[in-house]
């Protein structure tokens, strides 16, 4: 069956319809959970079906040219004409598959996970809406249209992080996410303006065509454009220095963390760089910055992940770290590797989050049953869960191996490709050698904290509590089935782009070739071959295994106390536990001063003080005072009146007679 790409609007329209239905239910029939349970996932599955059919048709037809689906003219303003149209090409189709596929699984999972929440309908409304915007983001044929989705997913992220807004911390986290993203958006917008000024167009296809003609490769302009673009990406994809929102974003329901803050939205930055690959390729300096920031983030976040106890926090920092890898990839010019890692990461990180969700779900039920107020997400309260939740344990183990980079799981291939690319680029730009080193160390740390996570959660003695222990059990099927699917994908995802070395044919690489043609021209990358390749692979495996082992040993070497009895952190661990005090630094250096400046200086000082009291009321007061002085002269004394009269008379004499 051939499905035209013109029908892609249907993929967007279905979740939109779902949003409207669920939204209406949330407002007026919040208890109609059955309907929500059907509508919510169904629209996603429908959307996935549409995407899959189009993908299949596209692949079967072997189409390489992008297909633009025009909906309507959005912003016509003279030379600027922004069409609201969708760009279907090989890159967007890959993303679409991930978004709708993983999205469908997570929707299904949510049916079980969120069932008992009073805001069930609202939750699905938000989730559907998120998918709508995510699809717009992926499909947008021009920067402004992409920006609709870009900001829209940010909005949904905001709403979902603050889903349980009754707790101030959650509402704070949502706001923080939105604001930090806005800083990135500022960069995004400036980049758009620069592109407009430089090229007179914002359409991706036109930009790709005009950029080589009107921009000097390596020139200031293209460097600035890409740096600003990357600022946007750093916001959305949680890179240094804008990563701070992502760990806090774990305040949202766990499926949300899986979908938005692991699998899809946060990878939008990577997608954007891939989408505008021609620009980045033309700006090697920017690419280096991207790769550097990515590598640094990968390392930095991994260190923080070492000393977190909240299971979701560990995964959050892990996400930041993995996103760093992706940027390292696209910055290196290995766009395919970046996208590849994006896809595999979507599989295994979604699996990890959902698995963690399953654990938390279980823990929560246990504590709920005994009316205990312990933290259901703290790993120190877990331990030995493999007995109660075997399915979850096995699947999480797969994901752990995948993320740690153990062959043949998905993560190994994608991560290895990135590191190899960085190493290769090092021959040309030495800084990349350092980035590679960062990547390698981060890989070791990743293995370490994942081992720690698994050990603390599933092994050893259970620390939940004697009474609670009885209530721990495996999640229902609606939750485990998606986990299984993801487990399969995490295990086998590597096949997507299996390199020739392992007998693969690098499908993804070839699939994306038409999209990356221009980039290859400007920023060609020679991947290592032969001996180097083997050494690198060997090193990677070694490091992954070593990290896992060390992590296991270190964690299990000492008894773990439940959170309530744990001793406070000390020394460097404390710094790590407090995430290098970055949040505190931002608060003290930027947010606080700005607020004080606004309140004390600008509002009370300038506005109420200088302008109002000084200028406005001052002049009024001056007028009044002058008038009062004048009336003081009006003493009622005729003598004075006559004197003034005569002064005036003399004045007239003087003026007229000189």
């Amino acid at each position, binding site marked *: 069956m051939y499905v035209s790409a013109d029908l892609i609007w249907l993929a967007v329209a279905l979740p939109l319809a779902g949003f409207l239905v669920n939204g209406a239910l949330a407002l007026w029939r919040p208890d109609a959970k059955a309907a929500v349970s059907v509508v919510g996932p169904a629209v996603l599955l429908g959307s996935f079906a549409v995407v899959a059919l189009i993908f299949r048709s596209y692949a079967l037809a072997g189409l390489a040219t992008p297909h633009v689906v025009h909906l309507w003219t959005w912003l016509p303003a003279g030379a600027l004409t922004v069409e609201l149209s969708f760009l279907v090409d090989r890159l967007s189709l890959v993303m679409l598959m991930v978004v709708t596929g993983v999205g469908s699984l997570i929707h299904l999972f949510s049916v079980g996970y969120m069932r008992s929440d009073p805001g069930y309908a609202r939750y699905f409304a938000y989730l559907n809406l998120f998918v709508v915007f995510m699809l717009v983001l992926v499909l947008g044929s021009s920067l402004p249209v992409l920006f609709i989705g870009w900001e829209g997913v940010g909005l949904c992220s905001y709403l979902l992080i603050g889903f349980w807004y009754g707790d101030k911390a959650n509402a704070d986290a949502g706001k923080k996410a939105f604001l930090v993203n806005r800083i990135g958006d500022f960069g995004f917008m400036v980049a758009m303006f620069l592109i407009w000024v430089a090229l007179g167009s914002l359409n991706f296809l036109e930009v790709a065509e005009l950029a*080589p003609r009107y921009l000097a490769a390596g020139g200031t*302009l293209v460097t600035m454009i890409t740096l600003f673009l990357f600022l946007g990406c750093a916001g959305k994809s949680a890179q240094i220095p804008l990563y701070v929102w992502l760990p806090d974003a774990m305040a949202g329901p766990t499926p949300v963390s899986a979908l938005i803050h692991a699998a899809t939205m946060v990878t939008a930055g990577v997608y954007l760089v891939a989408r505008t690959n021609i620009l980045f390729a033309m700006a090697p300096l920017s690419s280096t910055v991207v790769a550097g920031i990515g590598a640094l983030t990968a390392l930095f976040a991994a260190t923080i992940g070492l000393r977190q106890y909240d299971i979701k926090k560990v995964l959050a920092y892990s996400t930041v770290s993995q996103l760093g890898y992706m940027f390292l990839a696209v910055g290196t010019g290995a766009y395919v590797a970046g996208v590849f890692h994006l896809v595999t990461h979507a599989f295994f990180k979604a699996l990890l989050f959902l698995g963690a969700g399953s654990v938390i779900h279980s823990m929560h039920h246990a504590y709920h049953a005994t009316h205990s107020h312990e933290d259901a997400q703290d790993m120190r309260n877990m331990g030995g869960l493999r007995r109660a939740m075997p399915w979850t344990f096995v699947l999480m183990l797969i994901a752990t191996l995948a993320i740690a980079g153990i062959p043949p799981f998905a993560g190994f291939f994608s991560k290895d490709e990135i590191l190899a690319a960085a190493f290769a680029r090092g021959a040309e730009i030495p800084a990349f050698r350092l980035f590679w080193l960062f990547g390698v160390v981060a890989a070791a740390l990743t293995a370490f904290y994942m081992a720690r996570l698994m050990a603390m959660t599933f092994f050893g003695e259970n620390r939940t509590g004697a009474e609670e222990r009885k209530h721990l059990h495996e999640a229902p099927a609606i939750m485990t089935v998606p986990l299984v699917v993801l487990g399969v994908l995490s295990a086998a995802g590597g096949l997507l782009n299996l390199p020739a070395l392992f007998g693969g044919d690098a499908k993804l690489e070839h699939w994306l070739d038409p999209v990356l043609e221009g980039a290859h021209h400007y920023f060609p990358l020679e991947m290592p071959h032969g001996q180097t390749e083997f050494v690198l692979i060997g090193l990677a495996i070694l490091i992954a295994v070593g990290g896992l082992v060390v992590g296991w040993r270190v964690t299990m070497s000492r008894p773990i106390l439940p959170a309530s009895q744990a001793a406070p952190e000390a020394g460097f661990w404390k710094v790590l536990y407090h995430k290098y005090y970055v949040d505190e630094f931002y608060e003290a250096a930027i947010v606080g001063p700005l607020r004080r400046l606004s309140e004390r200086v600008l509002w009370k000082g300038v506005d109420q003080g200088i302008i109002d009291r000084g200028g406005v009321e001052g002049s009024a007061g001056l007028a009044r005072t002058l008038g009062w002085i004048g009336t003081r002269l009006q003493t009622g004394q005729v003598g004075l009146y006559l004197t003034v009269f005569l002064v005036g008379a003399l004045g007239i004499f003087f003026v007229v007679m000189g």
Partner: protein
Amino acid sequence: MADMLNLIGYQGWVVPVLLLLPVAGALLVVAAPAPRARSIALAVSLAEFLVSAGLWWSFVPEGGMQFAASIPWMPQWGIAYRVGIDGISLFMVLLTTLTMPLCVLGSWNYITQRERGFYALLLVLLSGILGVFISLDLFLFYVFWEVMLIPMYFLIGIWGGSNRLYASIKFFIYTMVGSLLMLVAILVTAWMVGAATGVLSFSYDHILANASAVGGRAPWLFAAFALAFAIKVPIFPFHTWLPDAHVEAPTAGSVILAGVLLKMGTYGFLRFAIPFFPDVAFSPAVTTIAVVLAVVGIIYGALVAMVQPDIKKLVAYSSVSHLGFVMLGIWAATLQSVQGALMVMINHGLSTGALFFLIGMLYERRHTRDIAAFGGIARVVPVFSLIFTLVSLSSIGLPGLNGFVGEFLVLLGSFGRFPWATGIATTGVIFAAAYLLWALQRIIFNKLDKPENESLTDLTPRELAVLAPLLAGIVWLGLYPAPVLRRMEPTSRQFVESVQHAIPQGAQAVAAPVNEGHP
């Protein structure tokens, strides 16, 4: 539709009807028994809106004035009743006529005292504002400009909050200082043009065509015009009347003030100050001042808005910020930036209007505007919260909603001319999110910890009816602004082209791709 309108001679009578209908309605309101006042006012303002709605179809999107008319008034002085509508005024008129029935409906239960006076003043105000937007005679313009002060003064002063007396007189005198200097400038301009051409006339077209006759006086005259408009906009540092007026005004007053009145300032710049004296307006010094003040307004307004404990004040300061975008767009004088500025004017009217309505509805329930008095009310008033969030997002400039369209076009269009200023202005989008989201959080999110808030009732059908048109506008203009943009394009183009000669070479906006010398 346009043909049907032509059939009934719409173009001939629409403007006088628009001007006179509200006045007649006001008389009717005064004559009617007090309980009837609001119904009559609603009917009249709805009729007014329906009449004006025809403009949408009847308007031909091309340059120049339409629906124009001229009736001698003071022939010895060349003063006449001259009116007309172009792509700039069209939307100001529609915005005004749209806002007014909503204001009447929004005040339905809020105004319990002296209803007749209130609704009559609203209708008179409607006439006055429309007059400002459609006058093509400087004298007529000035008269409307001033006359509309009076109803506003009474609206704030009689039906306002606790500090209304201070606010109303501040509003009045502040505005008056500027406009009186403008009066002098109008006179000087008209007389100098009259002396140079031998034809004394206050006609807009006549003065526009011969404004160069003022010669060396132009900077002073421009300054006088600009001051009047700057106060109205308001541009930092002439903005301090705004928070007071907004806070104290009754809901309808705030809505009109923010939704329509502030646009009179930017409209004045677009219609009079800049076209008359483009060489002054775009001289390096004035451009610098204008752009710096615009950017300062954007950032400053946002920062101060952030720390306001009073919701209305917050929104008031946000207006300062938003209008800064308009100023920036006007001064950049590219087609995109000017259209963007016009869009911001419309969008600000819709979203800030809606915000004030929402705050008013909250105020009617709790009798406080203190942000700290709320919290967590999303649970008890979900519909309200949904709309409040949506409107806030529109104000923040979320793409897909109307606010983005204007801001984006302004910034995009201005960037080529003022990269630094525009860059700084763009940070305004961060601050806008900061103050509105923070307020949003403190009002509808967080813990529902005040017992008074637990019994809040959600929006009534009447309140929904007030908000619905605005919400429709917010979404429609966000997703499909093309019909609006197309209608304003010819006039904007005319404006841009007419001032292009005054813009120093090298500073002109980039219209075509720049070649950096790539092989």
